[in-house]
């Protein structure tokens, strides 16, 4: 027999477990007792058990032990020890004072090459475009004036680093802030450039896109910190948890900017969460996967097909590559449409859409965070020409 038949037979045994005759009266007794409100001792213990049971572990934090990421372009950090009676308070590290350097925190894995140079080149090209076009057409000049641009040169700095260390319970959570470089204000095309003083409308639009993005980034890391503090409190001194959040710029071309967070949590139940913010540099809008495709396109099916194809290919290459969708036992348990809608994405340096799945979502934990790069050919009929 196969395991499905085994399970059916076991279920049959389960359904046939005999119910004792006195069970109902025992149940009714328990109900009555609960209503009479005695036995304080039981209630006390119940509260503790219930707290443990109902503490919310279903957070975005779901992780594995991480490689610790060191920032080479050292942010100057000022350690401020908070004055506090509670020994569990965090040592809050505040503010990078060195604002003149372009700071991009690189991951040790070396998978992603530095976007620093690439970013500058692309920006220089974009700048050239801005300089030429406004003079060739009045309409274009006007349009440029009212279209906000998320800064020609985008800088990302660590604005806050939350550190907590209580031995086995600790955290290191970095919050980035995106900044526009204002040093280009004095170019020849000052009157039509968005960050000039004249086109005040446009400049405030840019500022508000950026500050909107920064608010989102801060909210995201705030959530992680809050969840960590909650978990730390519940675990107390028996706790064992480490939360690390760091970020990388994964897309930085003339159209798009994408900032990726990697959060790793080590505790009894671990995982790794990725969160990527994709931003349109022109509008400052934070993008969704649907924005990478034409309106009304059924991109989910197309992506699913392509991803399944790659999974099967990987299965063939190495039988240790397991994915739930291609595993006969698990394929019914998983909803790929759902997972795709929840997945993160970015556009890689080759200009290809890359879908990122958190650990354990579409494959067993040991497979790690999974990335699938979608060739533009596979989506040529439905992709947005704006970004891909």
């Amino acid at each position, binding site marked *: 027999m196969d395991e499905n038949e085994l*399970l059916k037979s076991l279920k049959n045994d*389960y359904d046939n477990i005999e119910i004792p005759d006195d*069970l109902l009266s025992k149940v009714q007794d*328990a109900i009555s007792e609960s209503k009479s409100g005695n036995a304080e001792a039981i209630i006390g213990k*119940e509260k503790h058990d219930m707290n443990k049971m109902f503490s919310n*572990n279903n957070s975005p934090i779901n992780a594995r032990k991480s490689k610790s990421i060191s920032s080479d372009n050292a942010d100057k950090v000022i350690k401020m020890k908070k004055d506090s009676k509670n020994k569990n308070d965090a040592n809050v590290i505040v503010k990078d004072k060195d604002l003149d350097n372009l700071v991009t925190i690189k991951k040790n894995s070396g998978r992603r090459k530095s976007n620093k140079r690439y970013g500058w080149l692309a920006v220089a090209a974009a700048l050239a475009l801005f300089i030429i076009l406004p003079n060739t057409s009045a309409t274009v000049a006007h349009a440029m004036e009212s279209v906000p641009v998320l800064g020609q040169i985008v800088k990302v700095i660590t604005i806050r680093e939350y550190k907590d260390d209580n031995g086995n319970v600790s955290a290191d959570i970095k919050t980035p802030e995106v900044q526009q470089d204002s040093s280009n204000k004095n170019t020849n095309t000052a009157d039509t450039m968005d960050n000039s003083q004249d086109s005040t409308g446009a400049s405030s639009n840019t500022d508000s896109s950026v500050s909107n993005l920064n608010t989102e980034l801060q909210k995201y890391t705030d959530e992680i910190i809050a969840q960590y503090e909650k978990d730390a409190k519940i675990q107390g001194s028996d706790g064992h948890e480490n939360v690390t959040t760091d970020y990388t710029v994964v897309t930085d071309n003339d159209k798009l900017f994408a900032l990726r967070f990697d959060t790793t949590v080590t505790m009894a139940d671990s995982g790794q969460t990725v969160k990527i913010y994709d931003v349109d540099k022109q509008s400052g809008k934070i993008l969704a996967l649907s924005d990478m495709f034409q309106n009304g396109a059924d991109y989910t099916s197309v992506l699913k097909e392509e991803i399944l194809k790659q999974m099967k290919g990987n299965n063939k290459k190495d039988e240790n590559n397991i994915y739930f969708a291609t595993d006969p*036992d698990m394929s019914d*348990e998983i909803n790929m449409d759902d997972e795709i809608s929840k997945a993160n994405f970015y556009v890689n340096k080759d200009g290809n859409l890359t879908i990122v799945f958190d650990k354990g979502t579409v494959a067993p934990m040991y497979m790690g965070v999974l990335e699938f790069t979608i060739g533009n050919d596979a989506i040529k009929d439905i992709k947005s020409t704006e970004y891909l």
Partner: protein
Amino acid sequence: MSEVIENSKTYGSSGNVPRDEVEKAILAYYKDMYRLAYSYVRNIEEAEDIVQESVYSAMKHADSVKDIGKIKSFLLSVVVHKALDVLRKNVKVDSLDDNPEAENIGISDVYEDIDLKNALDVLSPTEKSVIMLRFFEDQPLKDIAATLNKNENTIKSILYRSLTKLKKVLENNEKEGRKNG
């Protein structure tokens, strides 16, 4: 023998809506609660104790039920917790059992002549919980995650490795069958 007592209270009359619903649900599902408890401890008295404690606990904490549609899942989860507690007290449970990464632990320990009726015994308490909730009580993965206070992806991993272990049990069993003619 009438086994279900209809709760005729209407909403609002006792001012305690969730509790009435929980009570109704207990009377509807106490047998499932018992079967689940029994599957862990294989002992009638212990299983009854677990059910009683779970009923008491569920009634006392009725206000933690957020969604009326989740009442059964709530009741089952109380049972699972009580049962796992009892097992922990009886036998020291290795925390490795709850480690989703310990995918391959135990497969080589699967005995060749295990009685298929006890096939689930090759699983850790947590793994067994996932299998029972999924296949005996038809709980969706999301609810199982809430019940076991784990992330849904962890549940997927646990389910995957449990099924792998059970497959191994069957393989070994078949080999034995062939050996014995």
